[in-house]
């Protein structure tokens, strides 16, 4: 896991677009940021998982997840950061803590407030990192994500 990931403004814009289109201001949504194992520090791909969603949560389709896991191996990509929206304030809930897509230390989870209806950026966002002790803790967005 990287200490600081680079990503383009386009990746961030597409992330907001996915969340707005999928959630329509009424449901949560999740996207994943990927990078190749050959250059893990730079996020190059967005994936929008097939998921069920409602006002207060999302649930990723298990069959989709299985195929996605195989695709990651075939394409030699890894999931670096999971992103999901909240209806209001951004924080890491107990569900977020318990059911991430990656369970390795250093994995990041970004929560975007207001169903991503606000300005594109990290304003009000909450970033959590999974520690070596298995616990999540808040980390600085600016220290861990670099927009280039």
């Amino acid at each position, binding site marked *: 896991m990287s200490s600081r990931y680079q990503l383009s403004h386009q990746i961030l814009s597409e992330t907001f677009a996915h969340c707005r289109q999928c959630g329509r201001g009424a449901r*949560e949504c999740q996207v994943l940021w990927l990078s190749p*194992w050959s250059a893990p520090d730079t996020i190059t791909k967005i994936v929008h998982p097939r998921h069920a969603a409602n006002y207060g949560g*999302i649930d990723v389709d298990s069959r989709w997840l299985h195929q996605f896991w195989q695709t990651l191996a075939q*394409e030699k990509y890894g*999931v670096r950061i*999971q992103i999901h929206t909240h209806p209001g304030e951004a924080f890491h*809930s107990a569900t977020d803590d318990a059911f*991430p897509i990656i*369970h390795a*230390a250093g994995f990041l989870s970004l929560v975007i407030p207001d169903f991503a209806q606000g300005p594109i950026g990290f304003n009000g966002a909450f970033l959590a990192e999974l520690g070596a002790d298995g616990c999540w803790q808040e980390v600085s967005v600016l220290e861990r994500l670099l927009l280039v």
Partner: protein
Amino acid sequence: MVAGVASKRKVNTVENVATGQAEPGTEKSLPIEAIASEEHATHGFKVTVIYNGVGKEFAVKPAESVKQLFDQAVMAFGITGNVHTLSLYNPGGQELSDAMTIKDAGIKPKDELLLRPSAVKAG
């Protein structure tokens, strides 16, 4: 290794059949694949476990439990949180029970198993 088993059991190998040194009456006793399979049953074999786009090889024996392989994989991939929400899956998408043996789970040499969460949620 294969030749060793073959000589003990007087089973024909590709070589001794080809050179006419086959044991009389044993020409059709066991195909090479069966000998190799018996070898795997005795000495174990390697499988690959995939997690987050990375594959790692693990040596397993048929009598070992799926849980033993799971624990090795969890450690090798540096997984720290909520291990109980992860499982091993065969390529067809079937979750492998921890309590089963490698043999009973149908795991074969060179299989590629997936270590992944059973559920991914947010709220």
